[in-house]
């Protein structure tokens, strides 16, 4: 069983399958609770997916927080419908990339990196609706059958249950969704958003942000930004991205949903406790370009809160040049001035000041950190450093 992760640029839809032709969507009423396997091969696949789910249930990366799970489920049910969402088993996993997936047996996985990147409920609904549309159209099953007829026995064996869920990106052309299939799921997602009363423009906004973040990553690593075309080339690796923004924007004109209803406030409340955690995960990804981009876009929506200032201060401190350290000190100070009371603010500023040879100020900050966080994981280490500069 070989798993590969999908990169940040991984497309939400990668995990699900396309319909071979633009068939009318199967209505929910025609489907049993969820699609049932039809032959031995599929039954084998189902067993593997069930096994995968058993693993997922005991996985330490699954976030069990009741409030968070209840909130994501409420958005799912509001978007796809109460009856439709009932059989879906939802798992929020602690994984720092932008991705969501849904398997044909009804397992839906939302990665925490997605929740850091969606800025309001409507954007989350866009992703959930997209995934559900793939599921409802039985895209995975079609892909599975399609692969069966196309590939040889050896590659077929590699196509295990877990492969069906997470490895589609790596298996390349045979298993990729076609553009039509992605488009269909996007369209389905948009319909659901509109029906649920969200502003459908948010779908295009989300995808645009993801593209911009990818650019920021490349710039941060000294690479060239890829040229965007709304008409994707035959061999483009992510053909749907720029094109997707364009047609989602067009479609949202036809199907606006409820303008300005994006559920930003409810989303903010639900994410309050988790943003700092997910942001911390992101800062440890060694992807400064994307981290700065995310911090900036979160600040655009919320202003520079002490948390966001702490985030960008930590980022600058880890970069480590004198200019970065000066900036870090400034951001820590802003966070403190704005009422931030996290002890790590003084720790970070103290360590940055110490590297700038401003020992006197550093000592004051580190002393305050030790006082405020007597149980800190690095209490002993900071005590030693303080001893060295006092």
């Amino acid at each position: 069983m070989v798993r590969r992760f999908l990169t940040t640029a991984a497309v939400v839809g990668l995990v699900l399958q396309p319909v071979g032709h633009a068939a009318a969507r199967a209505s929910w009423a025609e489907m049993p609770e969820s699609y049932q396997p039809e032959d031995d091969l599929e039954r084998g696949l189902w067993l593997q997916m069930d096994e995968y789910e058993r693993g997922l249930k005991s996985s330490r990366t699954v976030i069990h927080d009741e409030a968070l799970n209840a909130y994501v489920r409420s958005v799912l049910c509001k978007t796809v419908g109460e009856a439709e969402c009932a059989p879906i088993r939802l798992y929020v996993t602690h994984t720092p990339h932008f991705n969501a997936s849904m398997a044909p047996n009804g397992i839906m996985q939302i990665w925490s990196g997605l929740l850091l990147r969606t800025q309001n409920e409507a954007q989350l609904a866009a992703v959930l609706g997209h995934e559900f549309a793939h599921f409802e159209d039985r895209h995975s099953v079609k892909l599975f059958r399609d692969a069966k007829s196309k590939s040889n026995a050896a590659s077929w064996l590699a196509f295990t249950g877990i492969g069906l869920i997470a490895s589609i990106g790596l298996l390349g052309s045979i298993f990729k969704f076609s553009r039509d299939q992605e488009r269909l799921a996007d369209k389905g997602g948009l319909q659901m958003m509109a029906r649920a009363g969200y502003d459908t423009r948010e779908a295009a906004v989300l995808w645009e942000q993801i593209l911009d973040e990818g650019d920021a990553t490349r710039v941060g690593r000294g690479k060239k930004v890829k040229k965007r075309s709304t008409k994707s080339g035959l061999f483009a690796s992510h053909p749907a991205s720029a094109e997707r923004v364009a047609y989602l924007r067009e479609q949202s004109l036809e199907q606006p949903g409820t303008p300005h209803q994006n559920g930003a406030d409810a989303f903010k409340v639900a994410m309050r406790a988790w943003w700092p955690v997910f942001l911390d995960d992101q800062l440890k990804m060694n992807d400064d370009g994307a981290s700065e981009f995310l911090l900036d876009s979160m600040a655009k929506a919320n202003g520079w809160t002490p948390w966001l200032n702490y985030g960008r201060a930590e980022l600058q401190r880890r970069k480590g040049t004198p200019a970065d350290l000066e900036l870090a000190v400034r951001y820590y100070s802003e966070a403190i001035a704005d009422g931030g009371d996290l002890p790590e603010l003084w720790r970070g500023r103290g360590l940055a000041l110490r590297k700038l040879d401003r020992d006197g100020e550093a000592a004051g900050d580190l002393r305050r950190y030790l006082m405020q966080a007597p149980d800190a994981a690095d209490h002993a280490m900071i005590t030693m450093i303080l001893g060295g500069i006092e």
Partner: protein
Amino acid sequence: MNKFIGASAAAALFFSAATPALAGWKLIDNGEPVKVAKSAMVVTPGEDWNRWSVRPVKKSEIWTLDGINLNEMYFVSGLKKGETLYKDANKKAQPLPKFDGSMDLTEVPEFMESSIRLALNTSAFTTTNVAPTTLGGHQAVRFEYEYSIDGSPLLRKGMAVGSIVNGELHMISYTAPATYFYDRDLAKAERIMASVRF
């Protein structure tokens, strides 16, 4: 791209496409001082260990008692500015952080945490008990950590000691499943770390 083979989280840090098909093992005798990680670092183990022929980075070395999934010592010595702690197997999409000699000791745990999070693609990682110590007579930082990989119920615990001497990182880490193995072999690992001479 990293490959994750079954639940072998520890192994995944070290496997890559370039791993030789025939990895070999060599017995390290107890009580004998032995050079590690192709460097000036010398340690004296209190019991027999097995050295793996696979080296994730040039100046590194892996030892185990029962297999690296059960107990693993990772030695890195003389890591220079710009080098990574593990093999930078997914350099394009998800490059590992690079060491910088200007780091101070408080940044060594951060450097390792970020490296493991990226190499194993997990966010379930916590660092605890960061404290001063010495390594081969040099000022060092000792810290503990625990992590799990995506889809696995297994919690791994680890303990590491790192020191920066003349802008180069020397580090030894010990990682094992939190259940049974970590506690069983911790004292052996600590003894090896305490035996370091340069």
